[in-house]
């Protein structure tokens, strides 16, 4: 395949509203893919990484949110990147491979030579250009991004074994109970169009099995998992796992950061990871100041140009301030995401928290989380339009939208 014929299409799976209740309460107001990390919507980071792919012709977002949720974003980002970005809506969840397959006509429209598949809720450096180069040299139908993690955490993910020399994928298993390997699947893939035939084979097999309905009672016992509809095809378990060891799939290891953004706590952590990445990739996005004309900035901080921050405030590290926010005199912000139109009054303190759109934080009040990004109440989250009155303390709590806190709370969920 000559490089003049090379065309790449990127596909980003964004999910949908009824899945992933783990992102509540933030997902009550905004689809998770559009929640801002380091000042940009979550989906913007993988899309931005696609910029570095030579011969990129199209980007598709596939999910089952309503089209109107993505309409504005998609048209503005197409304009900015000068690459068409389209949102395709699944009528119902089909699994990661099923979704890809159901839109194969769109994806193959430009006759791409390679398809990059990304999961929106993955936070990493997306080394796509290097990965594409490696994929071409392996000559398989797919290459997966992989990373080494600690043995204890590996079982939460898809564990895989790769040949040390050829980097071929030898074995893959999803969330195993016993230890298989500390090398895990990052949720970033590069495929050739042959992947669609592999998915089609699985559909055919399923149909054939359904036709031979004489399932013995022992077999019925074995299929202890919920019966999946025939058109629900998971990429990892149903497609990749069976192809392991057949010289079709390869791996590309990243040594950079990698996290999954499943909960609001993790979104705070990942916002910090992307902020620190800006230091290398886009330092002009980071704020600076020393308390004279502009507020004191320490560590990596993003401040939207329309936000107003009093010079006596001290901001950072790991703070992201969104549009039209107003940060008053003497405010201290550490490790937090301040969303649009928030007003933080004098001398308030916010640590390890997410403050929702249009909320207000009163004078001398303290909104704080412990900073355990994985615990249920590890950071404090204030939903949209929450008012924290003067001098009130909110610790390790989650407050749903449109509430007013007149007394201090700790370790509570407030509906």
């Amino acid at each position, binding site marked *: 395949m000559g490089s003049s014929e090379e065309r790449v299409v990127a596909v980003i799976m964004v999910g949908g*509203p*009824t899945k992933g*209740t783990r992102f*509540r*309460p933030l997902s*009550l107001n905004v689809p998770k893919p559009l929640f801002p990390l380091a000042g940009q919507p979550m989906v913007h980071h993988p899309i931005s990484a696609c910029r570095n792919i030579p011969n990129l012709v199209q980007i598709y977002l596939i999910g089952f949110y309503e089209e109107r949720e993505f309409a504005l974003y998609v048209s503005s980002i197409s304009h900015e990147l000068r690459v068409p970005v389209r949102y395709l809506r699944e009528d119902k969840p089909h699994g990661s491979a099923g979704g890809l397959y159901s839109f194969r006509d769109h994806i193959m429209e430009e006759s791409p030579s390679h398809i990059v598949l990304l999961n929106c809720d993955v936070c990493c450096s997306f080394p796509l250009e290097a990965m594409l180069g490696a994929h071409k040299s392996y000559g398989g139908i797919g290459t997966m991004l992989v990373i080494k993690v600690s043995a204890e955490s590996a079982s939460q993910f898809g564990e895989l074994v790769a040949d040390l020399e050829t980097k071929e994928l030898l074995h893959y298993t999803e969330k195993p109970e016993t230890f298989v390997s500390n090398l895990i699947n990052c949720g970033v893939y590069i495929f050739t169009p042959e992947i669609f035939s592999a998915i089609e084979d699985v559909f055919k097999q399923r149909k054939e099995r359904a036709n031979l309905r004489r399932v013995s009672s022992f077999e019925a016992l074995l299929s202890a998992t919920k019966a999946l509809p025939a058109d629900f095809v998971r990429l990892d378990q149903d497609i990749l796992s069976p192809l392991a060891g057949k010289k079709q799939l390869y791996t590309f290891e990243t040594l950079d950061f990698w996290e999954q953004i499943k909960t609001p706590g993790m979104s705070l952590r990942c916002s910090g990871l992307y902020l620190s990445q800006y230091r290398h990739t886009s330092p002009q996005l980071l704020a600076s100041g020393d308390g004279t004309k502009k507020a004191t900035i320490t560590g990596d901080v993003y401040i939207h140009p329309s936000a107003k921050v009093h010079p006596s405030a001290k901001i950072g590290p790991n703070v992201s301030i969104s549009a039209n926010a107003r940060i008053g005199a003497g405010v201290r912000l550490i490790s937090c995401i301040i969303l649009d139109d928030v007003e933080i009054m004098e001398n308030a303190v916010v640590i390890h928290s997410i403050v929702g759109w249009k909320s207000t934080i009163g004078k001398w009040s303290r909104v704080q989380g412990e900073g355990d990004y994985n615990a249920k109440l590890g950071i404090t989250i204030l939903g949209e339009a929450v008012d924290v009155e003067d001098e009130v303390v909110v610790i390790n709590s*989650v407050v*749903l*939208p*449109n*509430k007013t806190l007149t007394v201090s709370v700790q370790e509570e*969920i407030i*509906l």
Partner: protein
Amino acid sequence: MKALILVGGFGTRLRPLTLSVPKPLVDFGNKPMILHQIEALKEVGVTEVVLAINYQPEVMLNFLKDFENKLDIKITCSQETEPLGTAGPLALAREKLIHGSGDPFFVLNSDVISEYPFAQLIKFHKSHGGEATIMVTKVDEPSKYGVVVMEEGTGKVERFVEKPKIFVGNKINAGIYLLNPSVLDRIQLKPTSIEKEVFPKIADERKLYAMVLPGFWMDIGQPRDYITGLRLFLDSLRKKASVKLASGPHILGNVLIHESAVIGEGCLIGPDVSIGPGCVVEAGVRLSRCTVMRGVRIKKHACISSSIIGWHSTVGQWARVENMTILGEDVHVCDEIYSNGGVVLPHKEIKSSILKPEIVM
């Protein structure tokens, strides 16, 4: 005649139910809460109902069109752009409430359920010739509320006392008023409290009267009171010998079952249960003191008490759900699970037991 129903804001106390629909549309006794009030108003000749809300009315408007057609009554929304308290909304809706006839208009608090004896209220209001009539209800612990001190014989209101420290009376404001149009001249378009600013002035002029609400009264703005309210409501249906109540060997006490619901063999339902349209209650199920909303499936041998099961949820076989468990819309409790006071947000699956009251997001 016209009426204003104070709907207010986001109904956060009734979450998780109000995460799926606006509070006035949450079902109570198999009917949207607000429909009970609108029907009672229609019956005494009210031709237009104005809903005073302070959030986007779009979600409500489709439902309202439906009621408008079925009931042949006009329903509109009056939307506050800033919170106006309990009196301000009346000033905001002024043009809709005054229409030259000089008729008094009703004001209702949307969270209140009662028998809505509006005909009696109109009669009393006309007879005393005062400017405003408020309904009051007797409570056991008056010092939790604002007490209305009134002359026993005439019902003339002497004064209001907010959360009194000593006993001054046991009647509190029931949130149902009949007001002459002149009351609107007393209210400016700004945040104003009707109990603290407007009524005391009218009382000083000896023009405010109170009528004791006959029958039951409940503010069902939060789940615990909702369940108590259901008991009172079903009890009042029983007193009126309503044919709507279910009967049979599998029914205990007061039970309301929608005609499209299906009940299996060997169940024991009641007391104080309401089962909504399209529900399926499989064999061997025990239900007591609970509300089961539209489209719910309760699987075999399950046992539910003192709980609210939200629209289209399912409760698994042999599951036990009790002690103020509130399931939001589309919640699925797996087989054999125990929930003790779980409050579950919409679109969740409960795969492990909830041993003590907890919010599941």
